[in-house]
């Protein structure tokens, strides 16, 4: 039984890491109905920038380096909104979607030409020693990021549900033109969203970067979070978290307990299988916005 829980907890913690990436997608989708293909690239760039500030070009202390990284992501947010998205206001969402593809390639290219292509280690100084809680081995590392994710989610939910700006962002995501007609500046709303998404991408980039090293393959973690998005719903913050946990736990348990019967290796496709099942029954995800249709 302890073994089962150990597998479960390890899975849940990996799931949280997926959730962090999925969160970035959700934020942008909520505000502009755009599926942001650049989310993975944003995480990569944030990771590269952090390493750059931390030891490649400058030797800043960690807190300052993190602050500078967030500043860089903020500059990106402004650039994306005012250079790429502004001319596309009132165009179909598909155009915005294609534009984010361009942004993704641009970010990867610029990132690699500044910081180089070799994989870099990222050390935050958190000891990666396993600790035992209730008889289960846990990595301090995973615990730390679980905590960070929890704080991030509580903060985001509070921001969207309780603040004036959050309410305005929700209004923008429902109806751009009506939001404009009540005096909500569209570009400002988008900029705020992209900045928040940049911060989330930074957290995701740091979390994955410390595990895998900061390298080009970080952009593919975005693909890993696709089933999370489908299960949780494209526009639900709690959905992204819970779906991340489901996927993480599901793939780990599946691999350990079902894997041996079918020859193993089901970890890679198990999340997609779950996503498919969810699509059959709730096409907008477990927590996604229901599509309100009037007849």
């Amino acid at each position, binding site marked *: 039984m302890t073994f089962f829980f150990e597998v479960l907890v390890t899975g849940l913690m990996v799931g949280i890491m997926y959730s962090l990436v999925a969160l970035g997608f959700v934020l942008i989708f909520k505000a502009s109905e755009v599926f942001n293909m650049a989310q993975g690239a944003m995480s990569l760039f944030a990771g590269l920038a952090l390493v750059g500030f931390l030891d490649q070009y400058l030797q800043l202390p960690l807190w300052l380096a993190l602050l500078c990284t967030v500043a860089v992501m903020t500059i990106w947010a402004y650039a994306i909104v005012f250079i790429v998205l502004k001319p596309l206001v009132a165009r179909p969402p598909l155009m915005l979607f294609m534009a984010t593809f361009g942004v993704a390639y641009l970010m990867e290219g610029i990132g690699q030409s500044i910081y180089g292509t070799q994989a870099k280690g990222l050390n935050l100084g958190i000891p990666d020693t396993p600790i035992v809680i209730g008889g289960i081995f846990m990595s301090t590392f995973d615990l730390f990021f679980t905590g960070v994710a929890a704080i991030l989610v509580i903060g985001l939910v509070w921001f969207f549900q309780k603040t004036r700006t959050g309410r305005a962002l*929700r*209004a923008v995501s429902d109806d751009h033109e009506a939001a*404009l*007609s009540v*005096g909500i500046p*569209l570009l400002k709303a988008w900029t705020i969203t992209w900045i928040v998404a940049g911060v989330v991408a930074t957290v995701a980039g740091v979390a994955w970067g410390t595990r895998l090293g900061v390298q080009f393959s970080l952009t593919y973690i975005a693909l890993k979070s696709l089933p999370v998005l489908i299960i949780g719903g494209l526009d639900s913050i709690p959905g992204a978290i819970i779906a991340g946990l489901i996927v993480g736990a599901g793939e780990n348990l599946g691999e350990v307990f079902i894997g041996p019967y079918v020859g193993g290796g089901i970890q890679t496709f198990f999340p997609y299988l779950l996503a498919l099942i969810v699509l059959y029954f709730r096409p907008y995800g477990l927590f996604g916005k229901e599509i309100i249709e*009037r007849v």
Partner: protein
Amino acid sequence: MKHEACGIRQAGTFNSILAIKNTGGEKIVMATEQAPLLKVNNIEVIYEHVILVLKGVSLDVYEGQIASLLGANGAGKSTTLKAISNLVKAERGEVTKGTVEFDGKRVDKLFAPQLVKMGVIQIMEGRHTFEHLTVEDDLLTGAYTRGRDKKGIQEALDRVYQYFPRLKERRNVKTGYISGGEMQMCAIGRGLMAKPRIMLLDEPSMGLAPLLVKEIFNIIKRLNEEEKVGMLLAEQNAAMALNYADYGYVMENGRVVLDGEAATLRGNADVREFYLGLTAVGKKSYRDVKHYHRRKRWLA
């Protein structure tokens, strides 16, 4: 038949006509020196750089007046309103000629949110509520430009609930699930949250049952009288609009073709025939219907 105050206009020219306010049979001529609150001067609007929609529209709305914009589908009523509130930009349109002045200042180059802050609020056609927001949240978005004025916003909310008690009952329901009439109320109430000085109402009667239309129009009248909000009302329901408005503009094909005080327009033979469905004789016989001529055009 009174024709004196109804001038047929040439496109682009601007006849200044005394604004006459009709208050319960008694006519009070407003001081001609009083500058209009909203002055639209010969504007032209082009969509997507090629589609010419408005070809020189001029109109005035005075403080506390209800002016109505009449015309068939596609006459340019909505575009006129959006040109004033500058929402045309969000639809890839542009005011290419002419000026819009509000309260003596030129506003045609401002962004929509700046206009909202000045008190020019458009209530869009087709009840654009935020369907995943609750009624109360939806109303509160209307106060976005008022910043953190908590007390003022709460007062405004209470006042909206006074005008629309039904919204108060449904304040925790998502606007996607309320009825069409309630959505229209929510849209108007949301506009009220922003401290409007003039409201641009686009087809408030669209798709509503006659009783509800009456209710909405009564509230528009009350808002005009009690909150001193000027109204520019685009309506296809000409009979209803002329009953409540002080002044009317008839649009056709992107131009204002006729204007006058509402009472005069109601008496105008052409307006009676083409927009109100009445003739001097009263009901028509079948023979008249058979020979009924093509709808009159002012612009050939």
